[in-house]
C-alpha cells in the first residue's frame, strides 16, 4: 500500500516564512533563499517508493522446528532483491507470534539492497509450550526523500512453524523399569535374580529356591530369597497453582507450563516402562472428589495415559485462562490475599477450576499416596508451600525427587531476591534427603529427567 507522509511540510513552511520575511523586509536574499527548501519539495514530489511484491523474496529458516518449552529457537530471514533496481531503504519486521519472546537479535531490520543482493537477519526466540506459527513479515520501502512509503506483507518461503511438544526418545526410566516385574529393584525378598537373604524353609517354597549347600552343611532346610524386581509405583505431582504461573518475563514460559511439560514427559516414560503411575495436580480443584487438587490414582494403560494428558492440558489451559482473566496475588505466598474462584465451564473444562482461595492442604495429599510410592514433583519452588508438602511426604517415608524449572533468571533485585529464596528452599529440601534438580532455561529436559528419576525404593523389610 502506497502512502505519502507529510514530513516535508515543515520545509514548505520554512520556504513560506523566508518569502514572507523577504517581502516584509524587501530583501530579495530571503526570497531567493526560499529556492533551497523549494528544491527539496520538488525532490520529494519527484521521488516515490517502489512496490516490493515483484522485487523481494523472503525465506525463513527456523532451527530447531521441534523442541521443548524454554529452549532457544534460532530464526533466520533471508531477503533477496530480485528486481532490476536498487532498493536503498527496505525495513522489515518478522511476524513473531506475540506469545514468544525474542531473546537475542531483533526481528526488525533496515537494509539497503542492490540488484541481486541478499541480506540475512538473525534472531532467537525462547520456546513455550505449544505450537507456534509465524505471521508474514511486514515490509516497507521508502523513497529517497523518505516522503513516500510502500508497506506490504510478504509471504515468507521456508519455515513458518515450530513446536515445543517434543517427545523424548531416550527416556531414562526406560532402562530402569520393565515388564510387570520391572527392573527397578525393590528392597524386598522374593523371586528374582539378585540374592537378598535366606530364611527358614516354609511349606510350599519352590524346590529350586532351597539352599542345598546349607542343607548339606547344617542339615536344615533354608530358602533363598532374591531381591524382588517389580514395577515401581510413582506419583507425579505437578505444581499448577496460580502462584506457580510466573515467568521470568512477559513472554517467557511460566512455571506451570514448564512443570506440566516436564511431568507429561516423565509420565510417558514411566507408563511406557509399565510402571504404575499416579498424578496429582496442585492448584486444580476436583469438583467430583471435592478436593483442592486433581488426583488420578496410580495405574497403567492407554486410558490412564490419555486421562493424565487431558488433565495436564487442562492445567495449562486453566492456568492460562486464570492468568489473563484475574489479577493474581502480589505476593508469592499462595495463601495470602483473597483471590477469586475462576470457573472454566465456558472452556468445556467442567471438572476443573483454579482454586485461588484455598491454601495447599498437604495432609490430604499425603493421605492419598500409599507409603511405598515414589514421588516426582515438578514445581518452580517459588513459595514455601511445595517445600512444606515435600517435607510432609518425606516424613511419610516416600522417596522424593523435585524437578524445578527456573523462572527466576530475569534481571532486577526482585528476581535476585527470589533466586536467593529459591536456593534456600533447595538447601532445605536437600537437607531432608530429597533429590533436587534445578532445571535451567538452557538445560535439556532429558538430562534433567535423567538426574531426577533414578528413584530409590523406600526400604521395606520382607
Amino acid at each position, binding site marked *: 500500500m502506497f502512502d505519502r*507522509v507529510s*514530513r516535508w*511540510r*515543515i*520545509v*514548505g513552511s*520554512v520556504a*513560506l516564512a*523566508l*518569502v514572507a520575511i*523577504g*517581502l516584509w523586509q524587501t*530583501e530579495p*536574499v*530571503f526570497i*531567493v*533563499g526560499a*529556492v*533551497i*527548501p*523549494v*528544491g*527539496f*519539495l520538488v*525532490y520529494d514530489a519527484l521521488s516515490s517508493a517502489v512496490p516490493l511484491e515483484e522485487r523481494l523474496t523472503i525465506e525463513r529458516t527456523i532451527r530447531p522446528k521441534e523442541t521443548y518449552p524454554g529452549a532457544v529457537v534460532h530464526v533466520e530471514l533471508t531477503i533477496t532483491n530480485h528486481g532490476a533496481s536498487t532498493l536503498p*531503504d527496505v*525495513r522489515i519486521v518478522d511476524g513473531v507470534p506475540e506469545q514468544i519472546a525474542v531473546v537475542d537479535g*531483533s526481528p*526488525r*531490520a*533496515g*537494509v*539497503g539492497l542492490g540488484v541481486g543482493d541478499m541480506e540475512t537477519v538473525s534472531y532467537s526466540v525462547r520456546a513455550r509450550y505449544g505450537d507456534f506459527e509465524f505471521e508474514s513479515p511486514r515490509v516497507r520501502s*521508502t523513497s*529517497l*526523500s*523518505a516522503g513516500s512509503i510502500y508497506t506490504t506483507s510478504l509471504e515468507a518461503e521456508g519455515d513458518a512453524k515450530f513446536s515445543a511438544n517434543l517427545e523424548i526418545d531416550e527416556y531414562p526410566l526406560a532402562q530402569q523399569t520393565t515388564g510387570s516385574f520391572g527392573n527397578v529393584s525393590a528392597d524386598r525378598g522374593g523371586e528374582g535374580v539378585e540374592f537378598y537373604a535366606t530364611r527358614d524353609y516354609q511349606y510350599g517354597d519352590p524346590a529350586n529356591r532351597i539352599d542345598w549347600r546349607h542343607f548339606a552343611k547344617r542339615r536344615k532346610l533354608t530358602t533363598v530369597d532374591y531381591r524382588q524386581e517389580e514395577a515401581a509405583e510413582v506419583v507425579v505431582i505437578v505444581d499448577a497453582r496460580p502462584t506457580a*504461573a*510466573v*515467568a*521470568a*518475563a512477559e513472554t*517467557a514460559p*511460566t512455571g506451570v507450563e514448564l512443570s506440566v511439560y516436564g511431568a507429561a514427559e516423565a509420565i510417558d516414560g514411566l507408563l511406557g516402562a509399565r510402571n504404575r503411575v499416579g498424578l496429582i495436580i496442585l492448584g486444580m480443584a476436583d469438583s467430583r472428589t471435592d478436593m483442592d487438587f486433581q488426583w488420578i490414582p496410580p495405574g497403567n494403560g492407554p486410558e490412564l495415559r490419555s486421562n493424565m494428558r487431558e488433565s495436564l492440558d487442562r492445567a495449562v489451559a486453566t*492456568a*492460562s485462562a486464570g*492468568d*489473563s482473566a484475574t489479577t*493474581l496475588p*502480589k*505476593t*508469592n505466598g499462595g495463601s495470602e490475599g483473597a483471590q477469586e474462584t475462576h470457573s472454566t465451564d465456558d472452556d468445556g473444562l467442567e471438572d476443573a477450576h483454579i482454586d485461588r482461595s484455598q491454601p495447599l492442604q498437604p495432609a490430604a495429599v499425603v493421605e492419598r499416596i500409599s507409603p511405598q510410592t515414589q514421588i516426582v514433583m515438578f514445581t518452580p519452588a517459588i513459595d514455601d508451600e511445595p517445600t512444606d508438602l515435600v517435607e510432609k511426604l518425606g516424613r511419610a517415608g516416600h522417596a522424593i525427587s523435585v524437578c524445578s524449572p527456573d*523462572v527466576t533468571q530475569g*534481571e532486577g*533485585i*526482585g*528476581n535476585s*531476591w*527470589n533466586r536467593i*529464596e529459591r536456593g534456600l528452599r533447595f538447601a532445605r529440601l536437600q537437607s531432608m534427603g530429597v533429590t533436587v534438580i534445578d532445571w535451567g532455561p538452557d538445560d535439556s529436559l532429558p538430562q534433567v529427567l535423567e538426574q531426577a528419576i533414578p528413584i530409590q525404593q523406600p526400604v521395606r523389610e520382607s
Partner: protein
Amino acid sequence: MSGRPIDTEGSSAIAKWLGTRGPSIFANSVPGRNAVLANLVGISTFTALGMSLGVVNYSILGLAIGVGLAIAIAVISLTHLIRALVGGLLLLVALGAAFGAPLLMQVTAGGYAAGVIGLGVLVGFGLAQFHLAAYGDGAIAEAMAWVARVAIVIGATMLVFLPVTAEMPKLISMTGAVLPLELLVTPPSMSAAVGGFIAICWLAFAGIWIASTAIPLSSMFADERRQRFDSFRSRVLTGAGILLGGGSVVVGLVYGVSAEANTIAGIAVVVTGLVESSALRIGLLRVFVGGIGIAIGVSAIRRVSAIAVGTRPAWLPSALVVTAAVFGAGIFVGEPFIRTVEAFTGGVIPLTTVASVFHPTVPVLGLAFIGFLGVMGLLAIFPIFTALGILPARTAGPRLALVGTIGAAVLVAHASGPPVVVFAGILGGIITWDIGDYGAGLKADIREDSHRHRGAIVHAASSFLVGVGALVGALAINWLLAGAANSLSGSLLSAIVSIVALGILVMLLR
C-alpha cells in the same frame, strides 16, 4: 498464556525496598549514525553562522546552554536522590542561562549576540535530544513536577518563617483595620488586659495543638516507638493545655483580685508582670500564627505527595537543598537583592515595605516561589506545542534544530551577510532536520540502531546532493537578480516573486 514477570511478584519487602535499577538518561531517539551526522552538520552550520555574525563565542555558548538544558531534563526524570538534586540544580542554571544570557546580552552587548544565544539554545537542545531522554515520554512533565514541588517547599518554608520574623507591633498596626489585634497586645483597661491575656494564651495553645496535629511526627517512628511517642506528645499537649489554658485563667483571676484590692505585693507582682507584658503577648501571638503557618505549610507539602512528610521521596532532599540555598541567600544578601529588584522593577512591587515588616528572607523566598512558578510556566510551553502538533515528541529535536539554524541564517541576512552564507545556513538547517527526522522514523520502524542500514547513508547523500543543487540554483538566481535589478522595474520583480510564492503554495497544498 502470557507469563507474569516474576520480578513484579517479589514477595519480599527487602526486594521492594531495594527497588530496581534506574533508567538511563539516553533515549537515542535518532539512531547513532544519523545522530552523529546530523550533529556534525548542525553544529558546524550554526557555528559558521555565528562566525559570520562575529559572535561565534555566543553561538557556542547558546549551544552549550541548550545541551545543558537537555541533560538537566533527562537527569531530573531519573528517580534518584542525587540525580534529582544534580538535575534540578542544572535545570535552574540552564533555564536561568537560557533566558538570562540573551537578556543580559541585549542590555550589555547589543547586536545579534542575544538572538544567537537564544537560537543556539534551541539548536543545542534539539541536537542533544537526538541522544538524550529530554523530550517526550514524560521528561518535561517530570521536570515540571520537580519545579512545582520545590516551589511548594519554598512556599511552605516562607509560611513557617513569616510569623517567626514578623515585626508584630508593625504588623498589628498595619492590619488594625482588618484584625483588632491591638486590643490583645496593648489592652486599654484592666478587664481587657485579663480577657486579652486569657484569649492570647488560649490562641497560643491552639497554635501548638494545630501544629502538633499537622506534622505527622509519629509516622517517623517505628511501630514500637510510635506508641511511646504518641503518649509523650499527648502528655506535652496536656501540660501545655494546663499551663496556657488553666494557668492563664488562674493568673487572670489573681491579677484581677490583686488589682481590685489594690495590693500589689509578693506573687501579685509576678502576675502583673506576666499579664501586662507586651513582649509575652507578642511571643504568644507568634506561637499561634506560627502554628497556623506550620499547618498550612505541611498541608501544602502533603498535597505534593502523600509520602513527602515522614518519608524521603527522591525529590525531597533536592528541594530542601534548593530551599536552604534560597534561605541562605535571603539571610546574607537579602537586602541588597531586594533593593536591586525594586530598582529594576521601578518600585512596582513594594519589597522594601515587606522586608521592613518581615525579615528580608521572606520576600526573597516569595520571589523564589514566584520564579519557580515562572519556570514551570516556561516548561509548560513544550507540552502545549506537542499537543498542537508543532513539536511532536518523536521529531521535536530535528524541528528545534531547523528553527534555530534558519533563525540564525535570517539574522545573517538581516546583518547583510554574504548570500552564500545565508543559503548555506538554510541548507545546513534543512539537512540537519532531514537526517534527524529520517533517523527518528527509522528508529520508530526498526527500533534497533545497531543493525547496519545503508539506507541512512544513501538518504543523507542524496539529500546533500539535492541541497547542493538547490544552493547552486539559489546563488545563480541571486546573481541573475542582482543583474536584473538594474534593468527590471520594481513591479516586474514583484510579479516574479509573487509567482515563486504561488508555486510554493501550490506545492504545499497539493
